[in-house]
């Protein structure tokens, strides 16, 4: 490097050719970095498949549809965990997405400057709370409150739905979903805020010029312009939700069962790995936990792919340039 810089004034041609070489190097370097992401995911997938070879051979596709999780008789199936993961993530999205987008709208469209600063800082602080701390808060504050206050009210008012029936323990799939919602709130909010900020001011001015109220401006000029991006923010949140582990484990009840009621305890893919991996004594047990990891990877890929398809179908290719 030092010699090349030293030669620079001596020959412009050499500098030029050096620049081209540098560009090429830069191109290959960035390409390598980009490819390393593929490599990394490929390696993770390969290692998981390799570790779960025994379970894949023994249970085959049955692993995905069996509800058995019996270490004594060495029968393993992932269905209750897949169910728990999908349901708790869905609950989390249902709670977090409207809250996040509303917060982002407030931050970009309505709030005075100093409030934006303070609120943004607090949202980022929420993202910094370690998962295990949130879990402890969940056990000692949130779960008792859910058990004593919120759940009984839900059962009284919405008890006709099968979703809100049965005994109330506090720890439940719903509690897991609420904890995940809190954890994915910051990421969805900050991405949504960036997206709303990137909506051109002309959009808003045009809507105001047509006599729109603030709500109409937000709805027509801002939200519909940004809907593709907001959908993407929700997808990123979902990605996080599917893999959340520690805090969920602490409040979800850890019971591999498929029950319609959201008050019932459940179990997620990530939680069962966290709970059982370190002490899994037999080979097939360990291998089944590896396969749970593989299934989690699969669920994440499938859900993200579905989201991409939905994004294309509902936002349409014109969403980015709605002129």
């Amino acid at each position, binding site marked *: 490097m030092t010699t090349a810089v030293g030669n620079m004034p001596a020959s412009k041609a050499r500098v030029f050719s050096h620049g081209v070489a540098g560009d090429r190097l830069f191109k290959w370097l960035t390409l390598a970095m980009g490819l390393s992401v593929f490599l990394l995911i490929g390696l993770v997938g390969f290692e998981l498949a390799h570790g779960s070879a025994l379970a894949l051979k023994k249970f085959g596709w049955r692993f995905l549809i069996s509800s*058995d*999780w*019996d*270490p*004594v*008789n060495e029968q393993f199936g992932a269905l209750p965990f897949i169910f728990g993961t999908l349901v708790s993530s869905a609950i989390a999205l249902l709670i977090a997405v409207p809250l996040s987008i509303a917060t982002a709208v407030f931050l970009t469209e309505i709030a005075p400057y100093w409030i934006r600063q303070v609120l943004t800082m607090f949202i980022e602080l929420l993202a910094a709370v370690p998962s295990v701390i949130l879990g402890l808060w969940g*056990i*000692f504050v949130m*779960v*008792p409150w859910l*058990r004593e206050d919120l759940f009984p009210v839900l059962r009284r008012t919405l008890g006709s739905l099968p979703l809100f029936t049965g*005994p109330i*323990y*506090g*720890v439940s799939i719903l509690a897991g979903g609420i904890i995940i919602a809190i954890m994915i709130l910051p990421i969805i909010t900050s991405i949504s805020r960036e997206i709303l900020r990137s909506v051109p001011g002309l959009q808003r001015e045009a809507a105001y010029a047509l006599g729109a109220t603030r709500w109409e401006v937000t709805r027509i000029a801002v939200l519909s312009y940004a809907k593709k991006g907001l959908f993407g923010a929700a997808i990123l949140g979902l990605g996080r939700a599917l893999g959340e582990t520690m805090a969920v*484990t*602490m409040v979800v*009840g*850890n*019971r591999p069962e498929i029950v319609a009621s959201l008050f019932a*305890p459940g*179990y997620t893919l990530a939680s069962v790995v966290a*709970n*059982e991996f*370190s*002490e*899994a*004594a037999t080979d097939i047990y360990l291998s089944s936990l590896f396969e749970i990891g593989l299934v989690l990877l699969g669920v994440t890929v499938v859900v993200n792919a579905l989201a991409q398809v939905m994004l294309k179908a509902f936002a349409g290719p014109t969403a980015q340039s709605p002129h």
Partner: protein
Amino acid sequence: MKKKLVTLVLAGICVLLTQSSARAQMLINGAGATFPYPIYSKWFDDYVKIDPSVRFNYQSIGSGGGQKQILAQTVDFGASDGPMSDENLAKAPAKLLHIPTVAGAVVVTYNLPGAPTLKLDGPTIADIYQGKITAWNDRRIASLNPGLKLPSSDLVVVHRSDPSGTSYIFTDYLSSISKDWETHVGRNTSVKWPAGLGNKGNEGVAGQVKQLPGTIGYVELAYAHQNKLPVAEIKNATGAFVVPSVESVTEALATAKIPDDFRFSMVNPPGEKAYPISGATWLLVYEQQKDATKGKKLVEFLEWALSKGEAMAATLDYAPLPPALEAKVLERVKTIKY
């Protein structure tokens, strides 16, 4: 210039490293059970004062991990809360010895108004954990506790969600008491629980029981003592209700049937004062040590632990081996070759 500096620094680090390793003691590595970790670490700390030339490095990674590591010969000794299965033992490259060190109890704790002392027996606990008894004022609980006013509230079962030696002892006991439990659930570090909520660790189970009225759970005796949890008296094989304590567990060890290879289960022993839900913990050591000096030091340590070390057990809520068993185990330790 820079290169020279780097070389100098590297050389300096090398010198420091060689110096410190020259001064270091012999390191004996072990891994395994978390349950005896407090007493083992006390032993290792105190033993440095007896013999400053050895140092112990113990990783409490769990019994499953301890068995795997000793089978792979990546550690000098393993530790496990349950005896190794025949299947796992067959994987050992050489003869592996089970050295029982201390025993502990699993206690039944609960959340009832007024925290009364509950009396329970095995079949009732099995039915509770199978979800067949769902209310506190069930007549089977009531008949064991005459004079106690039991609430009509729901009975909620709490169990461990992580595989653990505590669960092994508990399910081992229920399997020995109830045929139904043995065939439908079985004994293991983790089982397919027929009912209840799962929580990670003793602290998770105890936390859930403290939080939720009407719950029943099981934790280690030491944990229950230190956190002053209410514990149930359990009916033993002779029909007496026994409070879990260091003494009643040692009594269980003294009356349990112990096979020659020390791979024993001590649940529900015939002793009159014996607490029925208890289990021992083991060190796993190869009979033929590969490294002569290390092997010698390990044997010396084991002899010290099984004589002097045992005396420290009770202060940490572990039950020491009764004298007769201690003598037998010491004899076995002497057969280790190096």
